[in-house]
């Protein structure tokens, strides 16, 4: 028996829990030690929530793939009569060859466009192509399915934008496309007549929205502050319990310290306060609607500044304060850059059961006061 076979024999004995002779030499002993160390990895458990999130994405992807096939079959070009004509006549050969070159070029462009992302040169072609597919789909149920399929693709595009480290402008465009497609998908499903078909499509939509929500949460750590605010806003649209700031008051105390009181919603335990985008101060009190933080005078900005909240789950809110407001005054609504939690009316069927949050149950009050003036653009406006 050669050394390789002998080692494998020893490993087999141990793998099957049988008596294993002591290795005859140090090298085999070291190799078995390495195998044992490697086998320690089997002690690691897969986090169940992570497994569930990935499974939801796999299901969504599998369905998108299947739907994409159906669309291609239903909307695919049919062979024309000309295409069936014989090719032996030379002038026709030339004409068809030229046409084939044009078609191939178009196919190449369309293929390239299908892989493009927001901000790419060919992305407009991709959107146009999607619009044509929607326009040519007459059946409302098929249209809703296609809309959901488009949303799944847009979520993947957003993910790719972030993972490729694209610019904030490109990511903003991708997020805007996702937000629009989310609204359109919800509207398309809502317009369907009640029945089993609608229920099935509604379920598919809810899974896709769950995927959108999971993706946004997952991408939060990879984006900068302004994008974090924009992502949080979309999470609010989906009914996630995101923070909002409605009022900030600041009082100068003794020993050159400021006590800043933030009022709002969904402040999580362990939230950080950021002034002008930088973590500042020590949190003295933290409830879901109020944060009190003590800030050193040296860290206190003058003039116009922003106050932000960063929850441990990565969601964030921000409000802009004018220098005049800092002595205990409340904010001017027009200056708010905060992330509102939009009312439930804007998210039919999306915020009902994902984690039992109460964010979607708010009657739109915080959204109206905090983000009403800056819906969609608050984050990037600061």
């Amino acid at each position, binding site marked *: 028996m050669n050394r390789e076979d002998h080692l494998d024999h020893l490993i087999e004995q141990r793998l099957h829990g049988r008596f294993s002779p002591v290795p005859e030499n140090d090298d085999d002993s070291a190799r078995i030690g390495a195998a044992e160390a490697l086998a320690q*990895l089997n*002690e690691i458990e897969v986090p169940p929530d*992570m497994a569930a999130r990935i*499974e939801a*994405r*796999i299901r969504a992807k599998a369905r998108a793939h*299947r739907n994409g096939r159906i669309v291609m079959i239903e909307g695919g070009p049919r062979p024309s009569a000309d295409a069936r004509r014989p090719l032996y006549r030379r002038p026709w050969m030339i004409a068809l060859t030229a046409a084939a070159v044009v078609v191939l070029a178009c196919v190449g462009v369309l293929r390239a466009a299908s892989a493009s992302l927001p901000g790419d040169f060919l992305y407009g072609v991709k959107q146009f192509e999607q619009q044509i597919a929607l326009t040519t789909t007459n059946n409302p149920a098929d249209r809703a399915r296609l809309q959901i399929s488009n949303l799944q693709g847009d979520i993947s595009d957003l993910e790719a934008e972030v*993972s490729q480290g694209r610019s904030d402008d490109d990511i903003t465009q991708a997020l805007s496309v996702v937000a629009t497609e989310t609204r359109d998908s919800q509207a398309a499903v809502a317009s369907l007549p009640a029945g089993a078909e609608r229920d099935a499509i509604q379920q598919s939509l809810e899974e896709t929205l769950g995927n959108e929500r999971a993706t946004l949460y997952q991408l939060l750590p990879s984006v900068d502050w302004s994008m974090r605010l924009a992502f949080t806003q979309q999470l609010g649209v989906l009914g996630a319990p995101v923070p909002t700031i409605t009022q900030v008051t600041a009082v100068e105390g003794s020993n050159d310290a400021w006590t800043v009181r933030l009022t709002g919603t969904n402040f999580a335990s362990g939230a950080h306060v950021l002034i002008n985008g930088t973590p500042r101060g020590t949190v003295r009190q933290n409830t879901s609607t109020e944060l009190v933080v003590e800030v050193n005078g040296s860290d206190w900005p003058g003039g116009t500044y922003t106050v932000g909240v960063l929850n441990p789950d990565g969601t964030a809110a921000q409000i802009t304060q004018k220098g005049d407001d800092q002595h205990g005054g409340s904010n001017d609504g027009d200056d708010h850059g905060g992330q509102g939690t939009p009312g439930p009316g804007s998210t039919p069927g999306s915020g009902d059961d994902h984690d039992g949050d109460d964010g979607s149950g708010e009657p739109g009050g915080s959204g109206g006061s905090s983000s009403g003036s800056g819906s969609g653009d608050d984050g990037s406006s600061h």
Partner: protein
Amino acid sequence: MIQRARQHNEEALVTLYQRALPVIYRYVLARVRRPDLVEDVVADVFLVMVESISDLRADHEAGFYAWLLQIAQGKIARAWWHRKRSEAHLVPLLSQDDAEMDDARWMAEPMATDLASNPAALQEWRETLEELGLALGSLTTEQQIVVIGRFLAGQSIEDLARALNKQPGAVRALQFRALGTLAERLGFASPARRRKGGRI
């Protein structure tokens, strides 16, 4: 199962995912060592699986694992590249202490529960994981497929031989060399330096 998955049957794809997840997760965690990145990488691997399952030629589990591991290797390389790139651009939002606490929490999450209450054991485990990840990264693609398939997925030499289209003897030789490299990298070169290991 693989044949049904090739036709993008949702349940078949999810079944394959559920079977392969522990192996891929453990492998990726060892190589990347950051659970916040691990989820991205693992998800990417399985999304590629859905996208490209029709390209899979093998119709047996070992071949499927070998294929997934190759995808995972590419995704891990990309994740490291993106991480380095983004770390150069992103301004940290949390203080160093906060970041270290978060890091500790991330690292603690996937560990066995008895380790969570034992800081010394947890630290030792983290070091072992890091060393294992680095050592695995030093193996060739085929060697990684053999040792992961053998010790994480529980495959036989014959299964692996089919997956790699090799003779069993050649797979045993790959295993021999791979374990030799791992032993060297892990500091098991002599029995005196051998550490406490798990059971195989």
